[in-house]
């Protein structure tokens, strides 16, 4: 054992030095190993796609077999029929669920006039569990490219952070390194949504301190060169900072990270900004709008951002979200 310990001590010292060298190199140069990463991503992505394709039906079969039939002596044929039917039912449920997700995604994409490539999540995170990323089974060959917006039927999921021929890695909006331009519903005020607070909370910073952010306000993406506008992000749950030069608030995202399955990558942006029409129509009048006799109604129609008034009663003409 003595020989082993001395040699292994040397080896562990060498390995720790090598690890630190790797960390230093990668940390300083940023993308020093993008070639190697690409190779590993595409190799592992192919395997992961296969594993997902295999394990899904197995999981369904196991769940359909999980109800034991205690009267084995009765009729094996009936039991077999039963199992087959159960499996078919499970399959049907799965197909129905999938088609509903696909339909919802299609609906959202049509509302925004986005061109969407649908894809399935084939891996969640990485081995250490510290990355907020998912791997999807669509890649460059399908038109997916770095920085494209990823959404599902509920809203914004994240952006593509790297892509190989047949897979792509999506950085979720709740990743600490993620930062998304956002605007409040019905305004054009620019802010940013950042992650880092865990999977179910985002942080919204509004750069205009004169506007009063309220609980219940909804956020959509602002849109830029590679980022489509109008994708729903979430709803404000708590305003945390009301002083200083900017406003910050906590946002509950519409997309739940734990149940991501079918997503769409926006590969073609609409010609015009879709505005707020992707948000679900709100249950309108919280306060009954009895004060109809306002004589200057057409003049008050233009929405003036940043006036600081509460949006409800000030604009009687804007009942729905349009």
């Amino acid at each position, binding site marked *: *054992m*003595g020989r*082993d*310990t001395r*040699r*292994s001590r040397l*080896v*562990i010292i060498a*390995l*720790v030095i*090598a*690890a*630190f*060298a*790797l*960390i230093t*190199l*990668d*940390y300083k140069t940023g993308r*020093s*190993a993008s070639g*190697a*990463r690409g190779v*590993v*991503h595409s190799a*592992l992505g192919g*395997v*992961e796609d296969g*594993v*997902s394709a295999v*394990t899904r039906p197995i999981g369904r079969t196991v769940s359909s077999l999980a109800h034991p039939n205690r009267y084995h002596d009765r009729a094996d044929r009936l039991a077999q029929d039963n199992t087959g039917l159960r499996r078919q039912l499970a399959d049907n449920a799965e197909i129905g669920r999938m088609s509903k997700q696909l339909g919802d995604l299609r609906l959202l994409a049509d509302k925004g006039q986005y061109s969407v490539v649908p894809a399935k999540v*084939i*891996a*969640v*995170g*990485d*081995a*250490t*569990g*510290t*990355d*907020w*990323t998912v*791997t999807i089974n669509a890649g460059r060959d399908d038109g997916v490219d770095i920085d494209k917006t990823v959404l599902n039927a509920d809203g914004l999921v994240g952006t593509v*952070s*790297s892509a190989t021929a047949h897979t792509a*890695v999506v*950085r979720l909006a709740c*990743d*600490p*390194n993620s930062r998304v331009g956002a605007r409040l519903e019905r305004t054009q005020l620019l802010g940013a949504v950042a992650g*880092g607070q*865990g999977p179910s909370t985002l942080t919204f910073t509004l750069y205009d301190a004169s506007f009063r952010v309220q609980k219940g306000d909804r956020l959509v993406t602002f849109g830029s060169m590679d980022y489509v506008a109008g994708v729903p992000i979430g709803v404000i749950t708590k305003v945390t900072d009301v002083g200083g030069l900017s406003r910050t608030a906590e946002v509950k995202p519409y997309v739940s990270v*734990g149940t991501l399955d079918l997503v769409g990558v926006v590969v073609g942006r609409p010609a015009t900004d879709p505005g707020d029409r992707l948000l679900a129509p709100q249950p309108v009048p919280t306060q009954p709008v009895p004060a109809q006799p306002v004589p200057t109604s057409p003049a008050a129609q233009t929405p003036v951002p940043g006036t600081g008034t509460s949006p409800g009663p000030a604009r009687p003409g804007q009942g729905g979200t349009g």
Partner: protein
Amino acid sequence: MWDIADSSDTVRVRTFVVAIALLAVALIGQVSIVARLGLPGGRLDLVLVLLATISLIEGPLVGAVSGFAVGVLADLASSHVLGQSALVMCLVGYAVGLVMDAADRSVVVPLAAIGGASVAGTLGYAATTSIFGAAALTGGEAVVRALVAGVYAVLLTPFVFPLLTAGSRRLSGRPRQSSGRLRRGAR
């Protein structure tokens, strides 16, 4: 002396290859299967459990080298800084390998070593991530996750440890590996 070292080295090479291949499979299983299960409370870290088991059976050298190799692979497959999980995994493999001789004595030793390795490894991931990148978790969350990972590891150990011990004996071609190891150690 030398021919014994040589013959044990050929066994070693095969052990390294098998260990690294096993851990690479676990890596894919972790992200494609285990991460999708949605286990209550946190996550099971399949890679750390297998790495700790292999280190406990084969010793610190195999543990450290295979941990490093698979760590680099995991880093390449992720989006964080290259080398950070390689650092954690090779240290975990080495540390667990040090208690290799005590593993035969009691059932508690493998349970404690593998559970502890999961806790320490998960904490190590959280620590290195917060040092080299943006912190993905707060301290409290990291501790809870580490403890949950430890519990899952302890639950999995009674299945994994005997299986890999049997596999290791078959691989080395010796029916009783421990006596062989003792004889070599006595020289």
